[in-house]
Every structure is written in structure tokens, then in C-alpha cells.
């Protein structure tokens, strides 16, 4: 019920927030708090300052802009889950948000926070990687963009510098010939995934795959794209058999660890199953006849 004492700041502009990050080297951004506050309660994180960004303007929009959906960093999982724009433009993002934690977590947790926290089993980093999303980052020297795939570096480790913050994410809008799928293995609904797969495929008018992305989560320190599996799909019709073969490549490309939740061997085997399910769902939604 009581955290360790810290200095509390509530900036009203992004620049002010960045200035506070610089002034408090041991400080942390407080967005949704659904990951940070439990850590503080357990004594595993003891930031000297919390910079509450929940009142910063301009970080809560969901805007369709060209072929992208621009989502502000403060957009809550619950918004992603229910917003008609997200559901239309990027359905797998809504689907991923809908299985995060529980309803209470989803009302506060933010996409910016989830991506910056970078838990290897979390759904949003996985989807961002598969979708080829781009993160918008602001620092004292200005803004920059990073592809999701280059943003997640290791266990809870990202490209974000301590004096930077995520301000938004751009996700390509899913067009008519594109389908996405998400498949995850969980012990109970809402738990962190043991293994999860997110697939995006595009088909041309002849039903041939023009583009494929397959990302796996929970199998390493961060989500990974399995390019060898993707290569097997591009240029071909997506039959059950071809999808099976592509999924069959996945285990060999992974080197997961064993822990209390699952052994490495089981993770490898399940990565294959989840990859197949995600690809099958994506292919079906793209209009493939399987």
C-alpha cells in the first residue's frame, strides 16, 4: 500500500518532462504504472523521482494519417481494444490489447509504457515488431524515429536513452489484401504468454503472398522476426502445407531458455504451433483459401 519515498513531479509539457528526466538521473516516467508500481512495491525498483506524464497534452490521439495509424504514447490498452479506428485499421493491435492482464490493468496501461518496458512476453512489443511499426521518441536534442525491430534490444532493454521518452507509435494500416493473426499460449486468460506469435501476410489478386512477417515472443530476451520462415512464404500461394512448413522452420531458429513456466524444448515446440496458428489466421483474413 505504501511505496518507497520519492520526489513526485507532474509536468504539463513534454519538454518539461524531458527536463525533469535530465534533472533526476534516477527518475522514471510514470505512465500507466501497471508494471512500474508493482516493482516499486516489491522494492525491486526505487526511483528517486517519478515524472507523471499522464497529464501531458498531445499524447492520447489515435489518428489515421496516410497509410499509418498514429497512436499517442499515452493511449490506454482499453482504448486500443475498443476504438473503432484501431479495430478497423489494425485489428491485431486491438486483439493483442484485449488479452493484456485484466480490465483494470487495461484501463491504465499505455502503449508507450508497454513498449518502453519491453517485457519479452508482452503482446504489444510483439505486434509492433511483426507489423513493422515505428516508434517516435523525443529527447532533449529533438525527435527521432526507430523501427520496432531495432528498438527492442534485450531483456527489459530498449534503444530508449534514460533522458528520452516515447511519444507515439506509427503502425501501418492493414489494407484489403492483408491479414494479421495473433496466437499465444497462456496458462490462464490475461497471463503473460509462455510463447506468442504474430503474423502479417499480404496477398496479390492471384492469391500469392507478396509480403510476410512472422514474429515470436516469449522465446528470447525480445521479440524476433523469423525471416527464413517468411522467405518460404513470399511468392507462393498460402496453403496449409506451406504454412506448416514455414512454421516448421521456427524451432530451429530459436534458442529459448527453460524457466519455471516452461522448458526450452516445450517453448520451441509451442513456437511452431503458435506460428502456424498465427499464419493460418493471417492468411484466412487476407483472403487465402486454405
Amino acid at each position: 500500500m505504501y511505496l518507497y519515498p520519492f520526489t513526485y513531479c507532474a509536468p504539463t509539457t513534454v519538454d518539461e518532462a524531458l527536463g525533469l528526466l535530465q534533472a533526476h538521473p534516477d527518475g522514471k516516467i510514470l505512465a500507466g504504472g501497471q508494471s512500474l508500481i508493482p516493482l516499486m512495491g516489491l522494492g525491486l525498483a526505487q526511483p528517486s523521482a517519478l515524472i507523471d506524464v499522464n497529464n501531458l497534452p498531445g499524447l492520447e490521439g489515435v489518428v489515421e494519417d496516410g497509410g499509418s495509424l498514429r497512436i499517442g504514447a499515452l493511449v490506454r490498452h482499453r482504448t486500443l481494444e475498443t476504438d473503432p479506428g484501431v479495430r478497423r485499421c489494425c485489428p491485431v493491435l486491438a486483439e493483442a490489447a484485449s488479452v493484456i492482464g485484466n480490465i483494470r490493468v487495461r484501463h491504465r496501461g499505455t502503449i508507450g509504457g508497454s513498449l518502453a518496458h519491453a517485457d519479452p512476453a508482452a503482446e504489444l512489443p510483439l505486434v509492433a515488431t511483426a507489423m513493422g511499426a515505428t516508434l517516435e521518441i523525443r529527447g532533449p536534442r529533438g525527435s527521432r524515429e526507430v523501427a520496432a525491430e531495432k528498438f527492442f534490444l534485450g531483456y527489459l532493454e530498449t534503444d530508449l536513452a534514460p533522458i528520452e521518452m516515447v511519444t507515439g507509435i506509427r503502425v501501418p494500416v492493414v489494407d484489403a489484401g492483408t491479414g494479421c493473426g495473433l496466437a499465444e499460449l497462456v496458462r490462464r486468460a490475461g497471463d503473460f504468454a509462455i510463447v506468442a506469435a504474430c503474423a502479417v501476410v499480404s496477398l496479390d489478386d492471384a492469391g500469392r503472398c507478396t509480403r510476410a512477417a512472422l514474429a515470436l515472443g516469449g522465446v528470447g530476451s525480445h521479440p524476433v522476426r523469423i525471416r527464413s520462415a517468411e522467405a518460404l512464404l513470399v511468392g507462393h500461394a498460402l496453403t496449409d502445407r506451406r504454412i506448416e512448413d514455414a512454421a516448421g522452420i521456427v524451432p530451429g531458429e530459436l534458442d529459448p531458455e527453460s524457466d519455471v513456466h516452461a522448458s526450452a524444448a516445450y517453448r520451441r515446440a509451442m513456437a511452431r504451433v503458435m506460428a502456424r496458428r498465427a499464419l493460418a489466421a493471417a492468411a484466412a483474413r487476407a483472403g487465402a483459401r486454405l
Partner: protein
Amino acid sequence: MMTVRAEDTGGRRRLEFVLNGRPVEVWVSPHETLLAVLHDALGATEVKYGCGEGVCGTCTTLLDGAPINACLLLGLQAQGRAVTTVRGLRGAGGLHPLQQAFVDHESAQCGFCTPGMLLVAYVFLRDHPAPTRQQIRAALAGNLCRCTGYTRIVDAVEACAATHRASREAT
């Protein structure tokens, strides 16, 4: 070994918000979660500590009508907001129909999960007046109960929805 910090008594701030429809004012330190503020400072013992991880649901509170984990919100973050606990469900005429349904169906045994469960069910029914049992189960999946096995909780929510629909159709 962890660094020892003295209590930050100098950092107290005035916190004003609306609790169950009534304005309240209390001085809090930043490290007090909303749960601590409600339970200890304001005597709202119906909001409970169960895990501190946001997993169990016993601290469920509505913030501007949305269910959140009071144990994961700083008290100061409730500034100017409307906070509702289970005590805010009761109407002028007595128990909220959902509370009455819990009594009728004996959907509470030890009762520790009950305040949180009621708030989540209340919000769910507000937005989904004609749910299936499976939809009810999905809505309540984030609130843990160790006593009832959930069947009677689902029974009460379903019955309440049906009664409400019947009374609306009758008018």
C-alpha cells in the same frame, strides 16, 4: 543491502477529489497509493489490499467510472477525479439490484473479493445489458475469488441483467 531513506514528510500535498459523490480533501505523500489513501487516510476500508500487483482485484475502484487497481495508482493521481467504491453503488432506496442479487444468490462467502467483483460487474452490465454467461465470465476473469467457485457470482449477474431488462421492457 538497500539504501535507507527517511520518510519524505516534507513532500505532502493537498489532494482533493470526489469520493462516492462527496468532495474530500486529504494531505498525502507521493508514495501513498490510492489504496492507502482510501483505506487508511479516509477510512474507506471496503477497498482492500490483496496482492499489490494489480492481479487479485480486491482494490478495484472506479476512477471516473472506469475500474482500476487502487494499489497501482498514486493517491495524487486522483486529483480532481471522481472515485467510486462499492459504497457508491447503494442508492437512496437501498442496495443496488446487483448487490441484492448477490445476497439472494449467496454469491459472497468470505466476502473479501466482493466489493471489487461488484464494481467490475456493475460497469460491465452498464455497458452490456444482455450478456451471455460466457461473456459474464470473461468480464469477471480479472477478479479472483477463492471461496465461491464463481458459479453463483455469474448467476447473480445474469439474474440482475434479466431483471433489469424485464423491468425496462415493462415500462
